[in-house]
C-alpha cells in the first residue's frame, strides 16, 4: 500500500510541476511557452535519446520520463490514476494485452484521431485501437512478430545443425515439430530446450483467434477446448518430456540462467526480446535467431501511446505522441532496443531491412522480423479481462512446470476455480 501511495504522490508532484510551468495558459499553451510533459513507459521503449532530440527540436518543452519496470505495474498505476482522477502522465502507454480493458473508459482518454495519420500504421495495429464510436484511443508504438532465438553453440555440442537456415528447417513449422526437435536436443545435451513453459505459452496463445473471451465478453477460457489442448500439449512436453528448464520468466533465477553452463537452447523471440536476451546474456557467445516460428506466425506484445484527458497539456502531449510513433522514431527505437516498428513506412525502410544484430551472430534481424511480421495471420480477440486471465493460466502452468506443486489436472482445476471467481 505504502509504495502505491508514494508513487501516486510522486506522480502528483510531477504533474504539479507541469502545471506550474505553464501556469498562465488556458487550455493548451501557445507556442514558445515553457511546458513540461510527463511520459510513462515500461520495460524498454528505447525513448531516452528521442526525448533529448525532441527537447532540442522544441526548446520550450521539457520531458519527464517515468519508467516503470513491468507492464503489469504500469497497468496498475494507470488504473489507479484514472480512478483517482489525477496522477497520470501526459502520455501513458497501454499494452495490447490490456488495451480492451481501458477501452471501456473512452471518456478518460483523448480522441487521437487525425486524418493525416490514419494510414501510418499496419491496418490491424490501427484498428485495434479504434473504439466503437470511431475515436482512436492511442497511437501504435511497436509490434512483436516472433522468431525463434537459439544457442548455436549448444546446438553444435548436441550434434545438431547450427546454421540459421538449417536450424529453421530443423525446428519445423508446427508445435509438434518444435517439441520433437526439442526431444532430439535434450537427448544429447545437459541443457533444456526452453527456459520455461510460460515463454512458450505466449507463442501458442497468440495464435488462437478467440482465446479467453468471446465476442460478447463472456469468459470461455476454461471451456475453450483449444486452450485446454494447448495447455496439455505444452505441459506434456515441458514436464513429461523434460524440455523445460523450469524457470519462470523475468524471475531472478531466469535472468541468472542465461549465464550458466547448463541452461536452455531456444526462446520465443519477439523483436523486443532481443534486447532483453542481450542484456541478460552479455558475454555469452552463440545466440542466433532463426527465421521460423512454430504454428506459423505470431505477434507477442506491442503497445500504444495514449493521452489521458486529465492531463494539463493535452495538445502538446498529442504532438509528442504522434512524433514518438512516427516511422523515423520507430526505426530509431528499433535500433536501440529492437522494438519492431508498426508503421508501414518503417516496415519498408531500408534501414530496417538491412539492420543486423552483432550480438546475434550478425543476423539480419530486420529482414527476419519483417518476414515474421508478414507471417502473422491472426490477431487474437483480446477481451477486457485478457491480462487477468492470461496471468491466471500462466500461474496454472508455472504451478506444474516451475514450482512442481501440482500435476497438470489439479492445476487446471484451480484455474477453473479462478475463472469462476472472475465471472
Amino acid at each position, binding site marked *: 500500500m505504502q*509504495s*502505491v501511495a508514494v508513487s501516486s504522490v510522486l506522480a502528483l508532484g510531477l504533474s504539479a510541476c507541469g502545471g506550474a510551468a505553464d501556469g498562465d495558459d488556458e487550455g493548451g499553451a501557445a507556442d514558445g511557452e515553457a511546458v513540461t510533459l510527463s511520459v510513462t513507459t515500461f520495460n524498454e521503449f528505447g525513448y531516452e535519446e528521442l526525448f533529448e532530440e525532441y527537447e532540442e527540436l522544441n526548446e520550450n518543452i521539457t520531458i519527464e520520463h517515468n519508467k516503470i519496470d*513491468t507492464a503489469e505495474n504500469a497497468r496498475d498505476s494507470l*488504473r489507479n490514476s484514472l480512478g483517482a482522477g489525477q496522477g497520470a502522465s501526459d502520455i501513458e502507454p497501454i499494452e495490447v494485452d490490456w488495451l480492451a480493458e481501458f477501452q471501456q473508459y473512452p471518456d*478518460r482518454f483523448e480522441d487521437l484521431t487525425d486524418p493525416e495519420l490514419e494510414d501510418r500504421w499496419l491496418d490491424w495495429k490501427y484498428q485495434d485501437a479504434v473504439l466503437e464510436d470511431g475515436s482512436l484511443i492511442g497511437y501504435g508504438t511497436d509490434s512483436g512478430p516472433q522468431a525463434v532465438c537459439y544457442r548455436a553453440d549448444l546446438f553444435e555440442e548436441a550434434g545438431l545443425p547450427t546454421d540459421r537456415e538449417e536450424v529453421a528447417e530443423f525446428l519445423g513449422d508446427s508445435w509438434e515439430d518444435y517439441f520433437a526437435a526439442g526431444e532430439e536436443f535434450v537427448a544429447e545435451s545437459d541443457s533444456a530446450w526452453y527456459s520455461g513453459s510460460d515463454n512458450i505459452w505466449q507463442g501458442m496463445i497468440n495464435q488462437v483467434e478467440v482465446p479467453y473471451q468471446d465476442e460478447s465478453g463472456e469468459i470461455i477460457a476454461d471451456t475453450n477446448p483449444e486452450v485446454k489442448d494447448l495447455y496439455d500439449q505444452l505441459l506434456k512436453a515441458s514436464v513429461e518430456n523434460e524440455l523445460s528448464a523450469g524457470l519462470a520468466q523475468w524471475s531472478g533465477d531466469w535472468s541468472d540462467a542465461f549465464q550458466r553452463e547448463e541452461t536452455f537452447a531456444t526462446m520465443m523471440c519477439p523483436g523486443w526480446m532481443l534486447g532483453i536476451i542481450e542484456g541478460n546474456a552479455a558475454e555469452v557467445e552463440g545466440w542466433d535467431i532463426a527465421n521460423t516460428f512454430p504454428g506459423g506466425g505470431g505477434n507477442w506484445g506491442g503497445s500504444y501511446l495514449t493521452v489521458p484527458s486529465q492531463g494539463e497539456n493535452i495538445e502538446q502531449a498529442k504532438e509528442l505522441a504522434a512524433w514518438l510513433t512516427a516511422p523515423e522514431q520507430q526505426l530509431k527505437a528499433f535500433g536501440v532496443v529492437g522494438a519492431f516498428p508498426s508503421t508501414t513506412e518503417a516496415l519498408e525502410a531500408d534501414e530496417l531491412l538491412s539492420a543486423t544484430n552483432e550480438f546475434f551472430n550478425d543476423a539480419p534481424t530486420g529482414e527476419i522480423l519483417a518476414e515474421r511480421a508478414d507471417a502473422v495471420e491472426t490477431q487474437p480477440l483480446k477481451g477486457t479481462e485478457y491480462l*487477468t486471465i492470461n496471468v491466471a493460466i500462466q500461474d*496454472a502452468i*508455472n504451478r506444474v512446470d516451475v514450482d512442481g506443486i501440482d500435476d497438470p489436472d489439479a492445476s487446471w482445476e484451480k484455474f477453473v476455480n479462478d475463472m469462476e471467481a472472475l465471472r
Partner: protein
Amino acid sequence: MSAPAAQVPVSTTRSGGSAPEPRTGRRKPKLSFRHRASAWDRRYSPYLYISPFFILFAVVGLFPLIYTAWVATHDWDLIMGQGEFIGGENFMAVLGERGFWISLRNTLSIFILSSAPQVVIAILIAYLLDYNLRARTFWRMGVLIPYVVTPVAVALIFSNLFGDRFGLVNSILETVGIDAIGWHSGTLPSHLAIATMVNFRWTGYNALIFLAAMQAVPRDLYEAAAIDGAGKVRQFISVTIPNLRPTIIFVIITSTIGGLQIFDEPRMFDQYGRGGTDGQWQTMTMYLYELGWTRSDFGQASAVAVLLFLLIVAIGLINFVITRRISSSEVKR
C-alpha cells in the same frame, strides 16, 4: 491537570443557575457581552483546545473507516465509481473465495513466524546492549541500521538470497549436503523467507525500545538481587522481564498491527508481486490489492479491508486480555 480546569467553569455556571430567583432576575440585564463571552470561553474552550486531535482523527481515521465500510456494501469499480447498494454481497463473495482463506492463513503464519522470534531476540539483544560494552553507541546504532534500509531494498536483496535455483542460501545448503529448498514454491519456506526479511528489519528497532525500558529499571533492584544471591540469568528472569512488561505489551501490539498488514516484503518477494503461483505467500493486504487494483473491484477490496480491520481488533483484544492478566498478576506480587 485538565480535570480541575474543566470543573471550574462547570461549577461557576452551576452556582449561577441555582442562585435564588430574584437575584438572577436583577442581574440578568447587567450580564454584558464580555461576561457571557467569558462564560462561553470557560465552558467551551477546553473542548476547542483538544479538538485538533479529534478533527484530525475524524478526517484521517474515522472517515476512511466509515467510508470503506460504505464502499464495501456497494458494487464499486475503481474507475467508474459507485454502483448500486448490494448489502453483504461483497462480503459473501470474498468469504466464498479460496484466495481469501489462503491469504488469511498466510497472514497469520507470517505474523507468528515474524513477531514471536522478533520479541524474544529483541529482548536478548537489548540485554546484551545494556551491559557496559566498549563502543556502546556504535553497537546501539548498529542494530538500528537494518531499520533505516528501505523495505523494498531489503526485499530485493533477500529475494535474491532466497532464489530457488541459484540463490546463495540454497548454494550454502547444497554444499553442506542438504537439498535445495523451494523458497518460492513451498508455502512454509516462503513464509520463513519473508519472516526473515521482516525480522531483519524490525528486530533492532524493537531492541532499542527494550533497551530504553531496561535502562529505566532501578539499578538497586539488581544490587538487591545480587546480594540475595541471584545470578545473571535469575536477575534477567526475575528483575528485568517483570519490569519490561508494559514495554512488551506495547511492542506486541504494534507488531501485531504491523504484522497483520504486511505488504512490501511479500510483494517484492518475486518479480510479479502476486504472492506466488498458488498464493503461497499472498497476504491479506496483497489480496486486497489484487481485488482493488488488478481486478478493479473496489467493493470486494473494501470488504477485505473491513475484515482485516476486524481481525486486527480481535487479535489486539486477545493480546490485550492476555497481557493485562500478566501485568495485573504483576501488581499483586
